[in-house]
């Protein structure tokens, strides 16, 4: 079967029931997409299917045959980082970093549809992505600055030393 991955046509000769996650990681060899729970509960495996955020760990590869998949490796435009990736660096978002590809894929799917999300839009879009290190306040701030929304001090206080 074929899938379109990050703009390239990929031929796969694998068990059609294999979740897309393992096809991407083990068969195609792109390891940016992460395994976290295998049940669609944590969002670490999030990729885009025709622009929508989906959980690749519970998506059989056969069900996406011929369709366009984007992974974290395809988020930047060549060497030019996606605005969210830049914002993530600017806000010092990643800690262990393991969940961040999934967080970025959920956030980029949100902004593609809703360029000026409010807090509740962000919460709704991001509630499926768990971060054990607790980077949520920074993720929220980074999404807002990437969207050009004024980052209010109430969200994340960066105060001077006392």
């Amino acid at each position, binding site marked *: 079967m074929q899938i379109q991955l990050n703009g390239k046509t990929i031929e796969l000769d694998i068990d059609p029931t294999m979740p897309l996650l393992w096809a991407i990681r083990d068969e195609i060899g792109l390891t940016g997409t992460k395994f976290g729970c295998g049940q669609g509960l944590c969002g670490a495996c999030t990729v885009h299917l025709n622009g929508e955020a989906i959980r690749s760990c519970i998506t059989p590869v056969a069900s996406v045959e011929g369709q366009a998949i984007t992974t974290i490796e395809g988020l930047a435009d060549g060497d030019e980082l996606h605005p969210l990736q830049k914002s993530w660096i600017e806000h*010092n978002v990643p800690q262990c970093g393991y969940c961040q590809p999934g967080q970025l894929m959920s956030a980029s799917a949100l902004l593609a549809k809703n360029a000026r999300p409010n807090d509740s839009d962000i919460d709704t879009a991001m509630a499926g992505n768990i971060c054990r290190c607790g980077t949520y306040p920074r993720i929220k701030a980074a999404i807002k600055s990437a969207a050009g929304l004024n980052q209010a001090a109430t969200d994340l206080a960066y105060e001077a030393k006392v």
Partner: protein
Amino acid sequence: MNDQHDQNTVALAKQLGQISATRRQLLSSTVTATGAWSLGLSLTACGVFQRQAVDGAGNWKADAWLEIQPDNTILFTLDRVEMGQGTYTGLTTLLAEELGAEPEQIEVKFAPAAKEYRNPDYGMQLTGGSNSLSTSWWPLRHTGAAAREMLLAAAAEVFQVPSVYLRAESGHIVHPASGKKLSFGSLIRLAAKQDVPDEPSLTSADKFKYIGKPGKRLDSLQKVKGSAVYGIDSNVAGSRYAVVTRSPYIGASLKSSNADEIAQLDTVEQVVEIKTGVAIVATSYWAARQAQQKLETEWAREAEAPKNTQQVFELYKRRADEDEGDSIRSDGDLEKTIKNSNKVLEREYEAPFLAHATMEPMNCTAHVQKDRADIWTSTQAPDLAQVVVAKVTDLSLDEVFIHNQFIGGGFGRRLTQDFIGEAAEISYKTGLPIKLVWSREEDTQNDLYRPASYHRIRASFDSAGQLSGWDHQIVCPKIMDWYVWDAAPAMFPWAPKFMYKMLGHAGLMTEGTPMTPADRSPYEGAENLPYDIPAVEVRHTKADAGVPVTFWRSVGHSHNAFVTEGFIDELAHEAGQDTYAFRAGLLSNSPRLKRVLDLAAEKGAWGRTTEEGVFQGIAAHISFGTYVAQLVELKIEHGEIKVSKVVCAVDCGTVVNPDIVRMQMESGVIFGITAALYGEITIENGQIQQSNFHDYQLLRMNQCPVIETHIVDSDASPTGVGEPGLPPVAPAMASAVFAATGKRLRRLPLRLA
């Protein structure tokens, strides 16, 4: 994954082992006396710098941490793992500051297992206990400063000017008067021949360019691009995938299985029995998982294994009755104080078992061959990983090469190396390179848990209404009983394998003597109760129900702070005082704790008129040398606790990167709220009940409060931040819940009904 380099480093470690001062000697002497420090320094310098001429490839390996190459590549070998807490950035900053390079110019690689990378506080190469920064503060700055002075001396020869006229800047030595500059790389041949400075001058704090500044994390770019390599991303040519079916019961062993049938499946390569269960090996992870569903196993259960959670706490209570425990702290005459008191309050507190739930499940890629084993993984303790591999193979420790990667969350889980032993055993038995990946369910149910604990605590007030006595009995297991078996051999790497068990027993027998440090995990955070109370007893009664346990973020502090601060809150109420003022009035002996408490109260506007339904709580705690206070605001919505805001004040001494301090406070707070609201591992019919994120919940973005962090300006020695943000949040929440409902919650997680 440069094997040759790893081998060289190990060989170097052996060669230098006899003469180089360990970092422990260096550090401890640094702290105590300058004279002793320079001795330690010159030993290290002799042992490392003077022997390091530029090698055949033209590279200068100045010492175990720093290597400079002719093209001006500056390589730093990071020996404290990066698992989110920020060592990759923080420790690189220390080296960069003294060397005269920008942190971004330095290439970081992860250390192999080798003697000079041991953590001086433990005598093992492990990252934990929030001490990476404190133990690296002097050694890494010294390395950078010594190399800088040698590069300056080399450039002075070239430029024919005294080195005082030269500066190290951005990886170059510059001569400002003439505008000339030379890269470090072009100077290394000459630099390596210079005298090693006995006491290189360290940069004074007012001249710091990078330390104390909010620099960006150096690992962010790879982490946002998805190119950072974690253990689970290791890809070794020819490797097969393995999954293991383990006992569903705690402490059971395999009786029988249909492994032979499974081995016949077309999709399966081999099935092997290992110590922990049955391993299925296939060419894809998915194929191995599919085959695993057809595997049938029977298990022989141990009679003594715990049947359910209730039994564990019954054991704890029985032990509390029959054994008053080891005295950990004894101030004043408690019995007399209680007898003469006006009022005594007596309470029980409980904390459950907790799983670590790192986002990256346990995994390991192992290739065991006749004369060596290569291990690609994410571990907090590379030399303990060598031990577990040696145990299941014919190899000795120095034949085991650990290729450590970025770590997708540690929190103590990866201090225990069970998953590495499994992968090595499967590789050894199949003769194949093996990639073992645990499922989330396996990760949750085969964890080594934060120990559950039970506490009896009482306090007395004298006739003047002053707090006069405090008696805290802690009942829980000792982590060392579980950890010593791999740790002791790692500390004595020369010991033959038949001695491993003996070493473990010796470690347990000598615990608390100068030979083996005491396991403080049961009572840390309780023994150093900071409040002014004339009579204080802290006791530990050991009770181990047979549930596997290990270190969990902030370890003993994670439950003891809940108990001590929760009880202080009760005592304040009993005394009819404001809970913040009550604490503040008892902190004359701990001014640094009082300062953060005051700061949290001030910045969080303690006692403010809150919006309808919002209640405040407060708590303060010292852990790992760091002082943290937190003011929590929460609401009760539809019978559930919703934390809306946390104001955190922290004093961690000298700050290397203030934004990493903030990140770690936010991280600790969210980890702590997760535990306080949801965290509980339970046992029923001898089985762990939780399995995945639906029944072992973690806080999500929509439940996350606003978190403000305020850092106290300090020039005290730097202390850690990875764990100290966690302990105060649960008792601060309990304090606010009491304010909201009048209910005292003395058991974690906090449940209103």
